């Protein structure tokens, strides 16, 4: 279970996408998500699909890794698509018992499937090619202008770094505790009441561990004189290269195309 959990992991590499500035990738991914969610013409779909495919191929992350990150989310995609297909009103093209399928429903279903898959792939593209540290550094820089209006950019970024760092640990610990309780005969297949009781045996130790860890981390940070973002310098200074500007320009072009073609 844990071993196939690839969503959100960083996959070190030397590809062209890996070497882009994290700010560029943030812009690319967020803009492409906006474009994909807003797309409603066939040309828009073709252009965004091509655009995203180019970056996914350039990232040189094995397709299998994308697949194992997408697979657990497919159920959400399928359910959403079915909802569209069955419940969007339009010209009925198929009817059986209580089920009706309309032409508009089919179209919306297909479009929703496309949108969700692309959003999932984009999110993975970002995390697969950007280390958590780069990601939060980039985010901090993007948010910095807003710190004038009271948004704590550094603190937000620090929270995200810590969260990203500890999510896998949290999962692993949950996995370990689950196995320990299963080997004490805890059964999660029985009735739901029994399962809920057994769930307590996992959740309680998991939270105890998490709070314990949080305490230790706070102590360790204080012992190293951490005082927040004020006056802090960086080991790696981010620099935008011509390639970054190029990617940003193309991304902007794609988004503009999608918006204009949809009008």
């Amino acid at each position, binding site marked *: 279970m844990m*071993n196939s959990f690839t969503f959100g992991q960083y996959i070190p590499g030397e590809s062209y996408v890996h070497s882009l500035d994290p700010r560029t990738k943030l812009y690319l991914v967020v803009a492409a998500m906006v474009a994909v969610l807003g797309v409603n013409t066939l040309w828009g779909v073709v252009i965004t699909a091509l655009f995203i495919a180019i970056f996914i191929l350039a990232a040189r992350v094995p397709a299998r890794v994308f697949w194992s990150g997408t697979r657990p989310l497919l159920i959400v995609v399928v359910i959403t698509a079915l909802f569209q297909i069955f419940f969007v009103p339009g010209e009925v093209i198929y009817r059986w018992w209580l089920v009706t399928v309309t032409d508009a429903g089919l179209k919306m279903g297909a479009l929703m499937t496309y949108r969700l898959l692309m959003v999932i792939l984009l999110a993975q593209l970002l995390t697969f090619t950007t280390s958590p540290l780069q990601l939060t550094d980039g985010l901090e820089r993007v948010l910095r202008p807003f710190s004038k209006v009271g948004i704590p950019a550094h603190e937000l970024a620090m929270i995200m770094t810590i969260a990203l760092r500890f999510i896998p640990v949290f999962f692993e610990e949950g996995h370990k505790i689950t196995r320990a309780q299963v*080997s004490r*005969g805890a059964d999660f297949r029985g009735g739901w009441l029994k399962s809920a009781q057994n769930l307590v045996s996992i959740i309680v130790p998991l939270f105890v561990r998490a709070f314990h860890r949080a305490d230790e981390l706070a102590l360790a940070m204080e012992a190293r004189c951490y005082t927040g973002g004020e006056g802090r310098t960086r080991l790696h200074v981010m620099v935008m290269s011509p390639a970054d500007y190029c990617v940003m320009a193309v991304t902007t072009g794609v988004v503009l195309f999608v918006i204009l073609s949809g009008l």
Partner: protein
Amino acid sequence: MSIRFFNVGFRYARGLPWEKVALKNINLEIRRNEMLGIIGPTGSGKTTLLQLMNGIEDPSEGQVLIDEGDPARLRGREITRLRQKVGLVFQFPEDQLFANSVYDDIAFGPRNLGLTGSELEDRVRWAMEIMDLNFSELYQRRPQTLSGGQKRRVAIAGVLALKPDYLVLDEPAAGLDPEGRTALLALVKRLRKELGMGVVMVSHRIQDIISTCDRVVVLVAGEIVKSGSPREILQAGEELSEIGFRLPPMNKVLQELKRFFPHLDVGLIGEAAIASEIDRALRNQ
């Protein structure tokens, strides 16, 4: 009756780029009424090996049989029953304590097996007694308020309460103070002597294994590189030092002295035996 491994291999993250071979070509038998020790450096696959012993993981290659039952082929109730034969104590088992009282935590396993009433209470009393925990004094206490050594023993009692035929312990003494360590190892030794269980214990400290086990398996990088009695393992001490194991200090002394006294027996266990051996060698000179 035994747990048997036939050409077992295990890989983590199968098919992903970071696939990791944790075990290779393991052949092993664990009998009841035997105490087997597994030593190996960190990352050598000790924990993985233990998890295969009660079917919590299935082998990637080969087969594991628990008293002739194959956990990889069983489902539902049957696998639960098979798992119950092999009690698995994870590393730092006190992290898994969750109930509000020592009693409820130890009773969690037997309750899952369907025990109730006086039968349940007898079972909890029995497990606590074996682990040297005073029932009337401790059964109502919150596990969080116990000492480290007590918490560990409560957690082990929680597994013992399932009345397994085999008990498998992952680094049971890790992180305890020297006294707690000695006390716990003595308790583990009793399990085999008095209850006739098959006991498997993992440690990266040779000393703990040598002093408690009948048979020792040395695991390096996922493979069994050596197995034999504690005596045989110590006699190969030089080899082990080369791989990076730390011998018990007194055995290290013997090993060094052997250069000058070629007839020294380096397979001895315990400080008294070693001291008299050195004494003998010096007199004979």
